[in-house]
């Protein structure tokens, strides 16, 4: 099985005034294809920074990051946009759906950016919505859906481009416990179907549902022994 994600001594520093914060301090990590990995850590631990770097939303100051065989270096913003579009499916805590667009239009959006033809697009949207069990709600707007349903739409959107990696940032943070169970079930299903999933959370119970957990504290990564 190939390496999906490889971080080697990645550092990321922020300076607030004169103080320099080491958000990531020589972080190294390998995640293989088809793995379901959770990254767990309290707030301020560098979780978000790690997520931004893995998600190609930001570039590391030092060290190497190789995503699906592509070294992510100083690409231009547009090149990073293309990589995100092609390789990564994002699932966010607050769903981040565009409220003016219906469920199917939200799912369609990354496919439009990927310049996929209309017929193929419609097929993939339908497929993705079916997979999260929301084919009946295709024409609903986000405000007409429950939190769990919105997160399902977001997952469908992440799946639509058939990405190498699904990157979920606190996907259950805004959901009640029952819905959390449903969404986690969905993630496990997706994992069984062969998707590589990285889930970032502060919730131990959620993290334990992954195959493997990695702890992050003060920008340093440690494997959680099970």
């Amino acid at each position, binding site marked *: 099985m190939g390496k999906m994600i490889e971080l080697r001594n990645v550092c990321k520093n922020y300076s607030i005034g004169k103080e320099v914060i080491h958000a990531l301090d020589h972080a190294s990590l390998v995640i293989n294809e088809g793995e379901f990995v959770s990254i767990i850590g309290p707030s301020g631990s560098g979780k978000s920074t790690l997520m931004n770097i893995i998600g190609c939303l930001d570039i590391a100051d030092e060290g190497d990051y190789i995503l699906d065989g592509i070294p992510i270096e100083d690409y231009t913003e547009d090149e990073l*946009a293309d990589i995100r579009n092609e390789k990564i499916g994002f699932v966010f805590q607050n769903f981040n759906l565009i409220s003016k667009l219906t469920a199917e239009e939200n799912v369609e959006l990354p496919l439009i950016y990927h310049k996929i033809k209309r017929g193929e697009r419609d097929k993939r949207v339908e497929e993705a919505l079916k997979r999260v069990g929301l084919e009946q709600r295709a024409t609903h707007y986000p405000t007409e859906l429950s939190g769990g349903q919105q997160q399902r739409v977001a997952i469908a959107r992440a799946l639509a481009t058939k990405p190498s990696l699904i990157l979920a940032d606190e996907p259950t943070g805004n959901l009640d416990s029952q819905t959390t169970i449903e969404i986690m079930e969905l993630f496990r299903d997706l994992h069984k179907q062969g998707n590589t999933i990285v889930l970032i959370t502060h919730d131990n119970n959620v993290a334990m549902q992954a195959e493997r957990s990695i702890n992050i504290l003060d920008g340093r990564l440690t494997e959680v022994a099970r």
Partner: protein
Amino acid sequence: MQTLRMALKSIGSNKLRALLTMLGIIIGVMALVILVSLVKGATGSVTDSISDLGSNMLTVTVSDNKGNPVGLDDLVTWMADPKIGEAACYSKESMTAKYSGTSETADVYGISPYYDKIQALNLLLGRFIKSSDVTNHTYVCVINETMATELIGYTDCIGQEISLGGVKFTVVGIIEDSDTSLTRAFSKDSYVAYIPYTSLVRMSDSLTLEVTSFYISAPENGSMTEAEDRMTQILMARFEDDDDAFSVSKQDALESTMSSVTSALTILLGGIAAISLIVGGIGIMNIMLVTVTERTREIGIRKAIGARKRYIMRQFLLEAVVLCMMGCAIGIALSWVTLKVIGIVVSSLSISFNMDITVILIAVGFCFLIGVIFGLYPANKAANMKPIDALHYGG
């Protein structure tokens, strides 16, 4: 296509705001279209009646003689050309006319013979200025009916002596007052005297024997166009093929003044309307900036899932342009209605206020430009947002 649909959707999602934003453009377009159409309609009817009055002659002006000035003898030579009818030069000055204690200001035209024919002057009594008068610069004059009756006191005044600019002239002819000729239609109530061109040259400090402006007419049964072409040809040969040295125009001086006045008026009013369009454009920019800020989160999402800069740019730019064009369309529609209403209200004036296609095209083009210019900055601002910052904006 996809982008257009999104732009329409986003405009549609806040109709009141969109309408208020468009209001600036709507008013600007209405001002532009209505004002320019009104000016064009009004002057159109005036120019029509003017050109009815004097369309059987050409006005020639020489601005640069290239060391080869046109003389009175040249006019005679050109008249021999089969494609040219008569040619007559003229120069106008204002002078004091006196007759036994009465004193009035008169327009004195120094002319060469045939001027009466070209201008279609009707002789009431006596004779007109002849070639011999011009050659010998005699002090004879032909005056109009108004001048005869008002200055001298009676019409039958052939042989009387009047003073023009301090020089004594003998009246040899009286011209009938009529309003069919263009020049006199506007000088019906004024005093007009015609004297030999050479005599005017003698009296004037600035005037020389060089002819700088003259009229020509087409020969009987000849065409004006042919006469115009022939005259242009002759003058091109004379002035080293420089068509800036002279002008041959069908329009009479008055008509061209008229048209320059109206075009100045059109530009003035159009300019004022354009200013209001620019103000409308600033309104669009303002709202677009607000929209960009409001939708920071959306921009972040779009960027996160793979929208390139160009796509975001296009989306917001298109929104601004669509907003402008919608305002433009509404403005044009409302102007059409307004012009119809004005047309009904002033139907008695027999002036047609039609929408001018050029104005519409200008309005559409201008609106498009404004949309692009004022949309560019907000769109650029949106496109250059950093995805992480945008995603975490406001929570």
